[in-house]
């Protein structure tokens, strides 16, 4: 090979050249090794079933009454009372009452006579299970026996005057709900739980309460003590009980329409979502001085001559500087090689003899990372147009405010992350960004939970009108049953929200209260059109900034003035994109009612 001896500079005929003998530049030593890719596979699949123990239980208790042949069966007790499995029916004064109200504990009261002079152990009754049943036909011992109340004794008080014990009882609704399995409550009710919109880390009773905030319905225990859930409303449900003139008492039914002040027809939900946007700032620092830098002129007898600054820089110092822009990370750099001194004339260049220890500067590509806090704000507005029409204005309920914070250690990105050595920097950055924004799933759930909570508030606000009636018999009816009034006063269909049973001397009475959702409007029910707000998306995270480097020949040491880019505060201070707002209409059920001013 014939060359000039300087890389990049060709040899010119007539100039001194260097003859290099032919030689192998690279000797490849290649070893081929056996390589077989073994794909990932599951060695053990653990199939784990978690079951729920169902204790042994009596499905049927046979109550057998044998009557002497030829005689009429005696009239059965008006009610059967079982305390801790013992039949107290014959000892019970016929004053039994049981009361059920939506979303509350059911209660009951009974009085039990005790033998005169017998020893009474009051604490022995505390907390004992109690079952009160009665016959569908109080004259027929073979008629169906249905429960009036299943629960536990709350208080037992000795009644000295009556020589017996007064019992108050409760079905411990709240306590029982707290013992239910949370997953099964979710499955039964269709509710959802989001720690962002509901109490965080809720368990037991609190968990059920939080789940039920998202379900327009009620949960409790029926007369037999079984868990019972029902959705609010009558649409699409069969009528369980019709109350005609023959059923309702003379002075009934009664109506109570909701007050104006309880009405709300718009709910606004604000939800903030905070995460860290992992920004990467890149810049280029170009530090270069040409070897023959003309810095001025001076006059000679031969005319003006250039003043030339021949300065070059030590290569090791430049390499150090090229990598020293902390907190910026230098991802690559190159060195400007030493240039030959001279300006057409002869200049003795004493640096060329050690050219690889000198250079003209460097060019560095640098990056810096900032985890910028971003707060996305969302607003969900739920309006009930039928109610707005009925009441002539928009009536706002309390605004609900929720927030979700992504807890992210900024130092992971700003200090510890290094781009150098990453096989796929883009994928690596995406993984880090994902970690800094890892609650999007919670956000989606929170949207739905927040909407459901608002929806339930609106429905509840229009479900306050009630129709009550007394029936002079004991009717098996449960909360949530669909009741139809078809009598001389009221023609309407609603949902049972309260039941009271009373059995006394000559009294068998059932008070039934039903709720209707009624408003005076001709506006058709809108379609339920809720959709989650759309996220604004990530702002551009990769920003290029300009750095400058200028050689200053006038300074004492003739050095570079390097100005590494400043990151504007817009990229470091909290970023708040425009609020993403979504509005939706909520249809309300209207239960028409015809009220006759009759007798």
């Amino acid at each position, binding site marked *: 090979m014939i060359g000039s001896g300087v890389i990049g500079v060709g040899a010119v005929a007539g100039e001194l050249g260097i003859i290099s003998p032919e030689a192998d530049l690279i000797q490849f030593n290649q070893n081929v090794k056996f390589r077989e890719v073994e794909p990932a596979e599951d060695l053990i699949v653990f199939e784990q079933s978690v079951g729920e123990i*169902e204790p*042994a239980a009596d*499905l049927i*208790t046979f109550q057998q009454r044998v009557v002497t042949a030829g005689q009429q069966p005696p009239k059965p007790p008006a009610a059967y009372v079982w305390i801790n499995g013992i039949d107290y029916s014959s000892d019970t004064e016929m004053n039994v009452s049981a009361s059920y109200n939506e979303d509350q504990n059911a209660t009951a009261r009974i009085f039990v006579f005790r033998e005169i002079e017998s020893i009474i152990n009051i604490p022995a009754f505390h907390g004992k299970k109690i079952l009160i049943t009665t016959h569908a036909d109080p004259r027929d011992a073979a008629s169906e*026996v249905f429960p009036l109340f299943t629960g536990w004794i709350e208080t037992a008080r000795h009644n000295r005057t009556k020589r017996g014990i007064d019992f108050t009882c409760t079905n411990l609704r709240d306590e029982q709900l707290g013992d239910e399995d949370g997953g099964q409550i979710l499955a*039964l009710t269709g509710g959802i739980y989001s720690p962002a919109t509901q109490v965080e880390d809720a368990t037991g009773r609190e968990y059920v309460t939080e789940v039920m905030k998202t379900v327009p319905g009620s949960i409790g225990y029926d007369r037999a003590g*079984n868990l019972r859930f029902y959705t609010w409303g009558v649409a699409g449900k069969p009528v369980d009980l019709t109350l005609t003139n023959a059923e309702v008492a003379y002075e009934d039914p009664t109506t109570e329409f909701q007050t104006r002040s309880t009405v709300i027809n718009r709910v606004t939900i604000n939800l903030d979502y905070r995460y860290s946007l992992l920004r990467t700032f890149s810049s280029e620092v170009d530090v270069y001085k040409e070897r023959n830098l003309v810095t001025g002129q001076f006059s000679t007898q031969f005319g003006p001559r250039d003043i030339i600054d021949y300065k070059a820089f030590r290569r090791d110092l430049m390499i150090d500087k090229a990598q020293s822009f902390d907190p910026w990370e230098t991802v690559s750099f190159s060195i400007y090689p030493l240039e030959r001194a001279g300006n057409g004339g002869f200049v003795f260049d004493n640096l060329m003899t050690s050219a690889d220890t000198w250079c003209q500067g460097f060019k560095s590509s640098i990056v810096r990372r900032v985890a910028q806090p971003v707060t996305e704000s969302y607003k969900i507005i739920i309006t009930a147009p039928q109610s707005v029409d009925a009441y002539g204005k928009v009536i706002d309920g309390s605004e609900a405010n929720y927030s979700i914070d992504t807890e992210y250690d900024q130092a992971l990105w700003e200090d510890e992350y290094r781009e150098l050595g990453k096989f796929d920097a883009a994928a690596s950055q995406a993984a880090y960004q994902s970690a800094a924004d890892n609650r999007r799933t919670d956000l989606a759930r929170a949207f739905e939970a927040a909407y459901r909570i608002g929806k339930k508030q609106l429905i509840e606000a229009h479900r306050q009108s009630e129709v009550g009636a007394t029936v002079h018999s004991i009717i098996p009816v449960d909360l949530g049953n669909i009741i139809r009034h078809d009598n001389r006063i009221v023609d309407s269909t609603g949902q049972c929200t309260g039941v009271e049973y009373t059995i006394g001397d000559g009294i068998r009475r059932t008070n039934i209260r039903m709720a209707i959702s009624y408003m005076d409007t001709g506006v058709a029910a809108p379609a339920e059109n809720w959709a989650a707000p759309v996220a604004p998306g990530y702002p551009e995270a990769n920003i290029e900034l300009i750095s400058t480097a200028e050689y200053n020949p006038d300074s004492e040491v003739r050095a570079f003035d390097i100005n590494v880019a400043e990151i504007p505060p817009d990229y470091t201070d909290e970023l708040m994109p425009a609020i993403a707002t979504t509005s939706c209409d909520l249809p309300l059920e209207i239960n028409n009612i015809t009220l006759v001013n009759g007798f």
Partner: protein
Amino acid sequence: MAFKLYTDAACTQVFSGVLSTVHYSDHSEGSLDYVFYFADVERDPADNGAYKLVMLGGGNVNLSIVDSTPGSGHEATEIKTALTAGGLDGAAAGAPLSLGVAPLSGVSNAIPIHVRVTNAVTSAGVSVELRLRKPEAVALAA
């Protein structure tokens, strides 16, 4: 939430638990037949057989007749159970009723339980001695 008895095939009415019967000392009323439905609809509102009831030690889930005072009063042999009405005639008196190894949840998997009560007592009185008992078992995802 549990497997329990309902009085209707749609499993909307939970059986109260007490079956009240009237008999005559000369047994002139004959046998009294009833039908209930064994199901778990609360765990499986979607009615897709999501859960099964199995015995902890394996084997069939059997409903048994329990007599609290064996040897006196009413005896377990007064009760017959079967999965069909026609099966009552041939059922062994007082024998347990097998529901299989894994009854499934849901309304559509409700199992009819036919019960026949045949009084054998001749003296008048009211008695609560006999019970149809469900064994301890475990509900698992099917």
